[in-house]
C-alpha cells in the first residue's frame, strides 16, 4: 500500500504477517492504514506484527487505530504486537497514551516474532 504519506510493506514469517509502516500516519491516512492492516489477517492468522521502526510520525489517530485493532484481534483470539525502536519519539507516544499496557511492544522484529506464537493473556 502506498499513500503520499506512508506505505505498508508486508512480509510473511510462516503464518505471521508483518506490516512494516514506513512514513507518517495521521488523520488523513489512518482509515486506509486500518483497512490495509486488517486485510493482512486471515482466519488462520494467530498474530499480526506491526513494525513501527520506520514510522516517522504517529499521532492520536494512529494510536487510536492500534488500540482498536488490539481489541479486535483479542476478541478473535489473535494477537497484535508492535515493534517500536527504543528512544524513538514513537515509543514516547505509545507510552504516553498507555498503548504499551494494552498491546505487547517489542524493540526488534525478531523479539516480536519470537513472542508471536504466545497466546494472548
Amino acid at each position: 500500500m502506498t499513500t503520499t504519506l506512508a506505505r505498508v510493506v508486508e512480509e510473511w514469517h510462516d503464518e505471521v504477517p508483518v506490516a512494516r509502516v514506513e512514513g507518517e500516519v495521521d488523520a488523513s491516512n489512518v482509515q486506509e492504514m486500518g483497512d490495509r492492516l486488517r486485510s493482512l489477517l486471515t482466519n488462520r492468522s494467530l498474530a499480526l506484527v506491526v513494525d513501527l521502526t520506520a514510522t516517522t510520525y504517529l499521532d492520536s489517530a494512529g494510536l487510536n487505530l492500534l488500540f482498536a485493532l488490539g481489541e479486535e484481534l483479542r476478541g478473535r483470539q489473535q494477537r497484535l504486537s508492535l515493534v517500536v525502536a527504543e528512544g524513538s519519539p514513537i515509543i514516547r507516544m505509545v507510552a504516553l497514551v498507555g498503548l504499551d499496557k494494552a498491546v505487547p511492544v517489542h524493540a526488534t522484529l525478531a523479539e516480536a516474532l519470537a513472542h508471536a506464537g504466545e497466546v494472548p493473556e
Partner: protein
Amino acid sequence: MTPEPAAQWRDPRLSHLQQITDAALAHLALDDLLAALLDRLTQALDTDTAAVLLLDDEGQMLHARAAKGIEEEVEQGVRIPVGRGFAGRIVAERRAVAIPDVDHADILNPILRQKGIRSLLGVPLLVDGRPIGVVHVGTLTPRLFDEDDRDLLQLAADRAALAIDHARVYELERAARAAAEAAVHRLQSVQRVTDATLAYLSLEELLAELLDRMTEILSADTAAILMLDDEGQMLHARAAKGIEEEVEQGVRIPVGRGFAGRIAAERRPVTIPDVDHADILNPILRQKGIRSLLGVPLFVEGRVIGVLHVGTLRHREFTPADRDLLQLAADRAALAIEHARLYEQRRVTESVQRSLLPDRLERIPGLEVAARYLPAASATGLGGDWYDVFPVGGGRVGVAIGDVVGRGLPAATLMAQLRTALRVYAFDGHGPAEVLERVNRMLAHVAPATMTTAAYLVLDPEDESVTMGCAGHPPPLVVDPARHAHYLPACGVALGVSRATRYVEERFDVPVGSTLLLYTDGVVEVRGESLDAGLDRLRALAERHDGVEELCDAIVAEMVGGGSPADDVAMLAARPVAFGERLITRWPAQADALAGLRHILRRWLRHHGATDDETYDITVAAQEACANAVEHAYAPGPEAFEVEAVHAGGAVQVTVRDRGQWRRARGTHRGRGMPMMEALMESVHVQHTSDGTAVVLRRTLGGGSPR
C-alpha cells in the same frame, strides 16, 4: 458697349427689344436668360429661328448653347471652329454677317440646311470688345436682312453679352464650388472609412460602424457583409444594416451564384441597377424592396474572404466613385476582420494553453512559487512547454518542467499527457529517476518516435535539499541566500530516445532562502548567441533579482524580448521561505492539510533550536489541536483554520484557531487528543469566542520533559 444712337430707336420693334435686355435678365440663370433672349429676338425680328453659340475657354470652338426653332443644335452639341462657317466667321471677324441665301453660302452646320433655313443674320457677342460668342437669327423664307435688323440684333447682343458673361462666370464659379464640395465630401467619406479610431472597436462594433457609415455616405438604404467559409464554398451573412434578416436567418450564398456569389467568384465589383431583371438568389433582398445594388469583394492578401454590398430602395445608377469608395470600406473591413480573426485564434490558443497548464499554482505554505508561460510572439498554434508544482508528501514538493517539440493540438495534448503521467507517478511515491523512467516508457506508448525534454525535481525544504532527475532539459538554476547562482549539473537523455533509458537522480543542497529556477530553452536560446552566453546572462540576471515574482518578471523583461519571445517560454521559480519569530499559516479544514502543517512547523521549530524530541512533541500537540479543528470546524472553506506559532523568551506558543465549536471527542478510541496535548505541553488553554475556538499551547525549549 456701343452707344445707343437716338436715330436707331425709330423702329417700333425697339420697345420689344428693350425687354430683351432689361435688368431682369441679369438675375436669371444662364439657360433661362438665353431662352428668354431668343424668344424675344424671334418676336422682335420676326424670324423663325434663333441661336446662341458660346466660345469655349480656349477661344477655339463655338458650342451651341441655346436655340429656338433649331433645338437640335444644342441637343446634338454642335461645335463650330472659330474662323469657319457662318458663326465661325462672325467671331473671327467680330462683325455682323448676313446670308441672304443659305444654299450659296459657306455653312458648316448641316442642321441649318436640314431645317430649311433660307436666310441668316448673325452678330458677335462682345464684352469689352472681346468675343464670347455668337447670336444668330434665321428665316425659312428668303429674307434680305437690312441694316436696321443688323443694328437691332447687335444692340440686343451687346446688351445681353454682359448679362450672359456674368451668368456664365457665376455658373462656372458654382460648378467649381460644387466640384470642390464634392471633392471635400469624397475626401471626408474616405476619411470616415479609413478613420484610425475604428481600430479601437471590437470586430462586431467595427463592422456595424462601417455599414452605418457606408449607407450614410452612399445614401444607401441597406448594407451587408458576407464572409466566405473556410472551404471557400459558401458566403455567410456576417453583418447587415437595413436587412438584418440576412444575419438573423443565417443566409448562405454559394460562390458563383446570385449577386454576392458572383462578386466572390469574379473577384470584382458588381453593380445591379435593377434587381427585378437580375439573378438574385437571396429572397430577402427582393422582399425588402431593394431596387439597385452595388457590391465589392473583401480581399486579404489577394484572397477573397467575403463581400460587402449596399442597396437602395429606389432605382440608382451607382457611379465609379461610389464603387471606389465602397471598395475602400471593404478593404478596411477585410483588414479588421483578418486582424480580429488572428487575434481570436491567438486568444483561443492561449486560453487552451493556459487550461492545460496549472490554472493556479497550488499554494504550498512555506514555499514561494512563481511561474510564467509566454507563447511565441509569432505563434499561431499551441505550444508544448509546460511546468507543474505539487506536494508529494512528507512536506516535499515536486517541481517539473518540460518542452514538447512541435506546435498545435498534438503537441499540447502530449504535453497534458506527460504532465498528468508525471504527477501520477510522483504521487505514487516514486523518486525523480523512477518517475522519468516511467514517463519515458509511457511516452513510447502514446507517442512513439517523439522526443521531449523534461526535468523533475523533489524539493525537500525540511532537509534543505533537492533531488533531481533530468531528461535532456536545460540545467535548473539555484540561487543561494547569498545570491550566488549556480546551475545543477544536468544529465540524462531526452524522453523518447529509447524506452530502455535509465535515469539517475542526484541530491543537491538547497539552503532555506535559496531559489530554484526551472525554465525552457526559449529563455536561454537567443538567435545569434551561443547557448553558454545565454546561460551566463541568465545566471547574472538571477543574482541581481530577489524574490520569485521579481525574478520571473526580470527574465520576461530582459531575456525573452519583453514578453514577445521568438520561441515559447515557460519558467518556474520556487523558494522555501526563511522563518521569522512568528509563523502564521492558514489551512483548509481537511485532514490532508495536517501533513503540510506538520512539516512546516517542524522546520520552524528546528530553526528556533528545538531538539528532535521537543519538535516531535510540539508538532504532535499542535496536530491534535488541528485535528479537532478539521473535525469540528463548522465553516468549511479555503481557509478554515489558522495556526500561529510564536517564539519568545525561550518558549514556543502555538495557537490553533478555528470558526467552529470545540467538542470533546466521543467514541471508545477518540478521546486521546486532549490528554496527549496536556502531556506534551506545559500548558493547554481552550478559549471559546463568538468567532470560534482557539487552543493555545505553550512549552519552554531546552527545559526537558514538560511535566
